[in-house]
């Protein structure tokens, strides 16, 4: 038992925490994909922008204002990106939209380099969640514990939103059949905007948790977590909300176990190998076939 708490517990804790963050980012991917059939490559960068906004916001305003401000700016960015870069391509082939997403990602990264000068920045300490706590004899940050809980809570709210509200109904309709939904009077552009708003909101929340844990913001920091979150979304069955969450946790935990075993060279490769394996064996992912779960 002693060896378990000393060796495995920190690994598991770190894995669950990382998994929760992947899950929050993965939701943004999965929701957009569910409706638009678009891999939003810029999502990881929107997440990074949230980190930088927080960094700059804290220098001019107190924390309790900076947090809502960051969320607001991130959501606005997600909304604007959709309106400017994806909406004009609504009738274009899917490949064009994906290329546009890659272009946006390229633009956001270059913009961040330009504005910040490429200097990695220390993320501000958010009181309470950055405090140290002791769990089973292991010291860790409170955010490590909060992340999975908050993730689950947010997802339950999200599921409620989708199952019980009118906009949720519209989302489900749009993801089932885009054209028919439009014919039935669903305001499709509004639904899509709403999807991006929710996705960006979750990315902003994810960024608070992520950067409180890892403390440094640099322009490309979001790329890898973004890609991994996408893998998580595919793993769980893209378009499925529970799938994204389960996928996020599985990947987060697996990665940390591999690192603990001393094979960290292969931890990224493993994530992608897992992806290819899943795609080949079960192209729809773990929860992919349950159509009613799609958003």
């Amino acid at each position, binding site marked *: 038992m002693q060896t378990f708490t000393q060796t495995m517990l920190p690994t598991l804790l770190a894995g669950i925490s990382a998994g929760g963050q992947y899950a929050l980012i993965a939701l943004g991917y999965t929701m957009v994909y569910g409706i638009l059939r678009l891999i939003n490559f810029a999502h990881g960068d929107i997440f990074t922008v949230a980190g930088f906004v927080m960094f700059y916001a804290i220098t001019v305003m107190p924390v309790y204002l900076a947090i809502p401000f960051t969320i607001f700016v991130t959501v606005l960015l997600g909304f604007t990106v959709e309106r400017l870069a994806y909406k004009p391509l609504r009738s274009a082939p899917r490949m064009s939209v994906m290329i546009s997403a890659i272009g946006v990602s390229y633009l956001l990264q270059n913009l961040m380099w330009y504005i910040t*000068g490429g200097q990695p920045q220390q993320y501000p300490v958010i009181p309470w969640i950055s405090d140290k706590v002791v769990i089973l004899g292991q010291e860790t940050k409170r955010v490590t514990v909060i992340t999975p809980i908050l993730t689950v809570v947010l997802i339950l709210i999200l599921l409620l939103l989708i199952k019980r509200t009118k906009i949720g109904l519209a989302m489900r309709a749009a993801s089932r059949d885009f054209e028919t939904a439009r014919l039935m009077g669903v305001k499709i552009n509004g639904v899509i905007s709403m999807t991006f708003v929710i996705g960006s909101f979750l990315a902003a929340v994810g960024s608070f948790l992520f950067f409180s844990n890892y*403390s440094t913001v640099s322009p490309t920091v979001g790329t890898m977590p973004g890609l991994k979150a996408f893998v998580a979304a595919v793993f769980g069955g893209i378009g499925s909300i529970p799938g994204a969450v389960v996928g996020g946790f599985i990947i987060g935990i697996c990665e940390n176990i591999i690192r603990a075993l*001393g094979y960290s*060279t292969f931890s990224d490769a493993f994530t992608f190998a897992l992806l290819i394996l899943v795609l080949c064996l079960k192209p729809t992912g773990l929860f992919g076939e349950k159509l009613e779960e799609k958003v």
Partner: protein
Amino acid sequence: MKKLFALLLALVMTLSLAACGGDSGSEVSDDGAKVIKIGIYEPSSGANGAGGKKEVLGIEYANSVTPTVTIGGEEYQVEVVPVDNQSENDKGVSAAQQLVSAGVAVVLGSYGSGVSMAAAPVFEEASIPAIGCSCTNPGVTLGNPYYFRVCYLDPFQGSVLANLAKDEFDAKVAYVFTELGDDYSEGLGEYFSQECGRLGIQVVADKNPAGNTDMSGFVNAAKNAGADVIFAPTSTTVASLLIDQAASAGIPLIAGDTWDDAVILQAASKSGADVYFSTFYDEGASQAAADFMSGFQSWLNANSDKLSNNGGTDTVSAVSALGYDAYMVAIEAIKAADSTDSATIKDALASVTYTGVTGDVKFDEEGDVDKNIIFIKGVDTDKGEFYSVKEQGLNG
């Protein structure tokens, strides 16, 4: 029709841009003063952008201190030509070529050994000597007759740091944490491990895959291995992630020259980590070093742009000092050559001696300097300052 229009538009754009590009390349001094150009081959974007900018600042400061040089009895204005190699080897080649195009006589840089190695053939082809500031990998000068450098090398640095681990921490087990795919990091880790083998320190090693931001797993592994110190020759980006985690585990950190940076100061002060690193420069080492520090700081504070390039603080990074020395060495070589011809300057470099702010500079046949002492600094987490720990050499 629309397509034709697009094509035309693109053509017009291209041509106008080509015209602009042509202009910026060749600037001839209007006031009749003769100009000699020194190229700055440094990253100002990409993974090493932050460090590269600081090195550029050192060079620019040196340029403001010594803006002219006398060649053949005539006074020449020294013009520095910066170019961004974006920290990437494939971008570096054309950046280096851009300097050749600009007609520079000497090149200074780069931060990061990889880009320096990529550009070496370009400079050799054009017979332009290059003086590396903080590229510590042996491969930079080895087999590259046109590359020189003013800093010490990784084999030496790695060994010294292993000795530090032995002397200061009485380490039995060291956890060596390097960045996968980075030759600076892995090279330094390799030399450190070799020396540990000689000193009887057990080494546990792991590598961080590029882009990974989760360091807790590594710190846990270090803890489980019973490591007395973590040796982490990493970029500042990875460093600030690691410091936080190592602080909570209570393991002291030892690192290489890249950690002499304001980012480390912030990260360590915030978390209360125990951080030691090797560096090229110590303001208390000599009068020249102290003068450099005060001069450089007031120069930085006089210009907000410069200050923001230094990361918003006036903390002096060792790479700035190296940039300063590299520039001064280049000036000495130009004086000794008494010519603007780059091949002549290259020959003169081989015999230049100069006492810089980071120590004495005299190149050996490989183009390296013989510096046998390394400054070790630590972070005073209460005051939020760096302090000098000691000058560390090799034992026996």
